[in-house]
């Protein structure tokens, strides 16, 4: 993670070094994030209700922009560049900038500042076909910096059976993240970080997706990116189905098979969502078991889960409380790690959001065993970060 790191408590900071490091960090460590699945059920039934992409994230559609304006504290025109740049009807443009700064404990203490995302989106529609392209900064590859500051994280061709609708059959081919699980925005959420959809985990593939108000199904075949040194080394297939028996409830199932040079991974899991209208709380959870069959021997079974409760104090203030659990090998003691996340979102403007991200992470449920021959799981860590999110 190429962050700017300052040691806490330094009486005199080497200013020149810090400035150089900050500038270097700003141009080297973009990290995409997406919009919020917390809005599903609570604000709209499906991802495609607000997004051009049937899997969510990226460009907002007309309804999504209306929602962005309605929920912001000081609403301003939600369109791309405040509608100051007229676009032809077949073209949609957008983009997102995210930066974050704050305190880390791991267990050393750090202050850090780093960019998360600097992406521009474009979608061109020709009747039932759409071309989606995302271009932006990425962390450069060491030793090949000149060629790797800018990339296209996503680019794909999409066909939909009902042009202009949020529902129906969608077929996509190109580079994108396979649809799998809850697809939470923060890549550090355990079910993303350890659950098969990590940061920059996009692959080349083809997906068949069917979205209706009451259910949706996604099937993706994928191969790792052969053109660059990729994050995801797997070839395989992912499936996700979600059924919404009522307006406020959803249950889902997921499966993924991935094969790389080093291992075969089999993932299976369940998701659930329920919106409690009266307290305005959306609860969603995902639990996943994965078996990693290593070619060189060994087959650890991992368990990862995340429980997220989101409450709206007003239309513009949303609080997330998340509980994560990750066990890298369920047979071995003291490997399990758990986190408590507390994220406070303020949708200040249609285009501007401030987020306070906090995490406490501990091993073995924080057990401190008095027996020195059987020590506890490890040191407690965490962070407290302020994130700035601007949508073009």
């Amino acid at each position, binding site marked *: 993670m*190429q962050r700017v790191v300052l040691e806490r408590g330094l009486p005199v900071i080497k200013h020149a070094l810090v400035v150089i490091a900050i500038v270097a960090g700003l141009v080297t460590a973009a990290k995409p994030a997406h919009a919020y699945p917390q809005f599903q059920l609570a604000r709209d039934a499906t991802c495609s209700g607000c997004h051009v992409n049937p899997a969510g994230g990226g460009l907002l559609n007309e309804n999504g922009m209306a929602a962005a304006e309605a929920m912001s504290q000081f609403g301003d025109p939600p369109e791309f560049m405040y509608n100051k740049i007229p676009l032809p009807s077949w073209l949609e443009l957008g983009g997102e900038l995210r930066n974050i700064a704050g305190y880390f404990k791991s267990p*050393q203490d750090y202050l850090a500042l780093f960019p998360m995302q600097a992406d521009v989106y474009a979608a061109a529609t020709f009747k039932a076909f759409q071309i989606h392209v995302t271009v932006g900064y990425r962390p450069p590859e060491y030793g090949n910096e000149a060629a790797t500051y800018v990339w296209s994280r996503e680019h794909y061709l999409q066909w939909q059976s009902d042009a202009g609708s949020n529902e129906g059959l969608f077929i996509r081919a190109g580079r994108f993240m396979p649809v799998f699980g809850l697809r939470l925005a923060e890549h550090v959420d355990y079910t993303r970080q350890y659950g098969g959809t990590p940061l920059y985990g996009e692959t080349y593939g083809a997906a068949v997706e069917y979205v209706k108000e009451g259910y949706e199904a996604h099937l993706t075949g994928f191969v790792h990116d052969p053109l660059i040194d990729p994050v995801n080394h797997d070839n395989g297939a992912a499936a996700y189905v979600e059924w919404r028996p009522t307006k406020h409830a959803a249950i889902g199932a997921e499966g993924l098979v991935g094969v790389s040079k080093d291992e075969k991974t089999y993932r299976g899991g369940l998701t659930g969502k329920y919106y409690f209208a009266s307290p305005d709380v959306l609860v969603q959870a995902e639990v996943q078991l994965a078996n990693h069959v290593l070619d060189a021997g*060994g087959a650890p079974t991992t368990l990862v889960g995340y429980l997220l409760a989101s409450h709206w104090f007003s239309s513009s203030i949303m609080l997330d409380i998340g509980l994560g659990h990750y066990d890298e090998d369920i047979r071995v003691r003291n490997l399990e790690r758990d986190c408590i996340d507390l994220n406070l979102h303020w949708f200040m403007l249609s285009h501007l959001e401030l987020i306070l991200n906090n995490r406490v992470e501990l091993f073995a449920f924080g057990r401190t065993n008095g027996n020195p021959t059987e020590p506890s799981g490890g040191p407690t860590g965490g962070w407290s970060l302020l994130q700035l999110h601007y949508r073009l």
Partner: protein
Amino acid sequence: MRSLAWLALVIASAGCTRDADDRPKTLAYITEAILAPTCGKAECHSTFAQTVGDVFDTVVGARYTIVHDPLISLPADQMAPTGSQLYQSITTGLPSRQGLSGLVRMPYDAPMPNEDIYLIEAWIAAGAEGAQCIPDNGFACDGKDLVACTADGNFGELQMTCSGSCSNGVCL
């Protein structure tokens, strides 16, 4: 709500019956089960970013990094694994390679569990199987003499007895 109950049940049951740590002490296991999820994240020491030139999300990349840097120096570190660069980088920390002052402990976005540190220590003490040498180099120094490097990154047959010392695959 049923899925939430399942989540609680599975999480609760996960900590009940555990075996002793009999995990394989091999580079392949340590890379895929430990280093890749903690050190080999996209923005850190992945093949994608290769921060400071280190890669920990593939077996080949981890082997090259460990041998080339070197994070483990054999046979000295086999006798005293806690003195290896790898061990120190995940416990006490090492001087930054990006010019920052002070010691940097890895991973610096979240600690590594003690059990994983113990396994890495035991793996080094057992000879760092799989990360003794880089096969592409053909030859390696086993501490004193020149030996072949096997395809799986281990010291192979003796190639030459060095009258003096051996360094970087060459008798000196």
